């Protein structure tokens, strides 16, 4: 004789608790979709306001007090200059610091101090770096409001995160590779140069690209050193005044006229495409080398 399957169903208080628990799943899902929703809403809003302004003229024109003639030419060139110099300055120092910490440093209090210091520097607000840049690079070293002052300031700002990323990349290289090289008679530096660094390179490159994408959006620190200026020429030397795309966005945002709001939105599209491309590039490099 077959018996019907028994389905146990909770009643009373237990049933209520279970129902509340099931409903909570949707509440929590909803909350975690808020961020995604905001992201899409902002993208939609920017594109609907700014896409109409996007054109080759918008990229290739100098800024102007007439919104329809204004463009990103000088600010885009300024951004590329600052970021390029930043990479040249920050990358060797960051990788050097990371190698020293991971491979050469004596395991003593000096190392603890350096590590703790890096962690705290990573949390210093960018406007403080701006004050540092204004006092040290603009005034003390006399760089004024030039690309040089900007690049030094941004280099110091991204140094902590680049060091931390490089450290992680170096730690990923298995110690058997070091032992093998050392066993064959390589010196410590030869081991690092020929074996550890090539293995850590993808991680280091990913780290510096992410740092550059953050630096690309930096505004406050560069305003502090005086980059909020009107530039109507192409920068050809690092010792010229400059401005950057985020500062141009700031400039257009604080103007009351509707046309400048459109310019700001269009510039945001350009900046976001650049930042997202950098992030994508970093992700691609990371995935590519994870497999091999």
């Amino acid at each position, binding site marked *: 004789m077959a018996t019907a399957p028994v389905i146990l169903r909770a009643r009373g208080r237990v049933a209520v608790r279970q129902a509340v628990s099931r409903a909570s799943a949707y509440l929590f899902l909803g909350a*975690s979709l808020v961020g995604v929703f905001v992201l899409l809403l*902002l993208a939609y809003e920017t594109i609907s306001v700014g896409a109409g302004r996007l054109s080759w003229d918008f990229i290739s024109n100098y800024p102007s007090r007439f919104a329809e003639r204004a463009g990103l030419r000088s600010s885009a060139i300024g951004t590329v200059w600052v970021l390029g110099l930043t990479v040249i300055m920050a990358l060797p120092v960051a990788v050097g610091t990371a190698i020293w910490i991971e491979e050469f440093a004596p395991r003593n209090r000096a190392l603890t101090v350096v590590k703790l210091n890096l962690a705290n520097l990573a949390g210093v607000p960018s*406007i403080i770096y701006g004050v540092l840049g204004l006092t040290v690079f603009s005034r003390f070293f006399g760089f004024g409001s030039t690309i040089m002052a900007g690049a030094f300031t941004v280099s*110091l700002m991204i*140094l902590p995160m680049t060091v931390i990323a490089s450290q992680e990349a170096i730690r990923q290289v298995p110690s058997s590779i070091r032992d093998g090289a050392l066993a064959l008679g390589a*010196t410590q530096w030869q081991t690092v140069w020929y074996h550890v660094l090539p293995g850590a390179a993808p991680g280091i490159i990913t780290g510096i690209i992410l740092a550059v994408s953050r630096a690309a959006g930096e505004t406050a620190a560069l305003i502090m050193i005086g980059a*909020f200026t009107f530039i109507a020429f192409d920068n050809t030397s690092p010792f010229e005044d400059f401005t950057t795309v985020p500062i141009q966005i700031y400039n257009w945002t604080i103007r009351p006229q509707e046309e400048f709001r459109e310019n700001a939105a269009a510039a945001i599209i350009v900046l976001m495409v650049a*930042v997202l491309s950098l992030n994508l590039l970093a992700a691609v490099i990371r995935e590519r080398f994870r497999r091999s």
Partner: protein
Amino acid sequence: MSVVSEPLHAGNVHGALRRRPFSRWNETVVKGLLAACATVSLVTTFAIIFVLAEETIAFFREVSLSDFFLETRWRPLAGRPSFGIWELVAGTVNVVIWSLVIAVPIGLASAIYLSEYAQKRTRNTLKPMLEALAGVPTVVYAYFALNFVTLDILRPVLGNDVPIFNAFAASVMLAVMILPTIASISEDAMSSVPRDLREAAYGLGATKLEVATRVVLPAALSGVIASILLAIARVVGETMIVAIAAGSTPNLTLWPLSTIQTMTGFMLQVGLGDAARGTVDYQSLFAVGSMLFVITLLFNIAATWFVGRFREVYE
């Protein structure tokens, strides 16, 4: 009779080879260069402290400590200037409070969903999207705070009495900015709570919600607190959003719909204004900067301490 020698394994060889004296001069030079690189970050810290301290001391030669800490009005450019820091601190506290009110519930709920409810695939799509919010330049958020939150939402909903520059619009976008910080770090902490605790609670008849909120959340509390402290440090130090959307009128209020000025907002204003060196308003930039530096440092140190605690317990 056999000779018992030390077993030869990688660790020993590594150690022995490290001790071998390689006296090539370039090896020493390279080591020196690397150590020099490592000192750059130390020099940076000293430079920050020195730069802030030097002008702050000069500032306090002109303005007494009691004027700075006991006055409430911040009017550096008035005929009879007044340098009471509390209006600027209140501006910062204002946006900290309201951005946390928005971001903490949403961030924690997201963390709970990602850690306790979501399938692995959902989690692997949602988490990177949330973290993408952290990569958006803050000047972009500032644009939205002014144009979208204030002009498109607050004014149509609450009427045109809402000031064009208000703390709430800035707080909304600051909340969006810190959402990934809170969600991501809290999720890490929740994921590292051992399975046993959950299983034990299920065994006693707890529902999924009860496990999440009464077992996992308390167990991950130090990580959650760390995420909130880090978020506070980021809000306190953020400049563009508050400078553009919250206004530049120092105001001793925590009411979200008022025009205010934060510490960072004031610093940017001085930076834009090209104040002459040696004047009190130039020096006040550094006094406020010192205050900002100390506050963010304290929150960051506290956060590191809490992160260390949850790592200690479960890893």
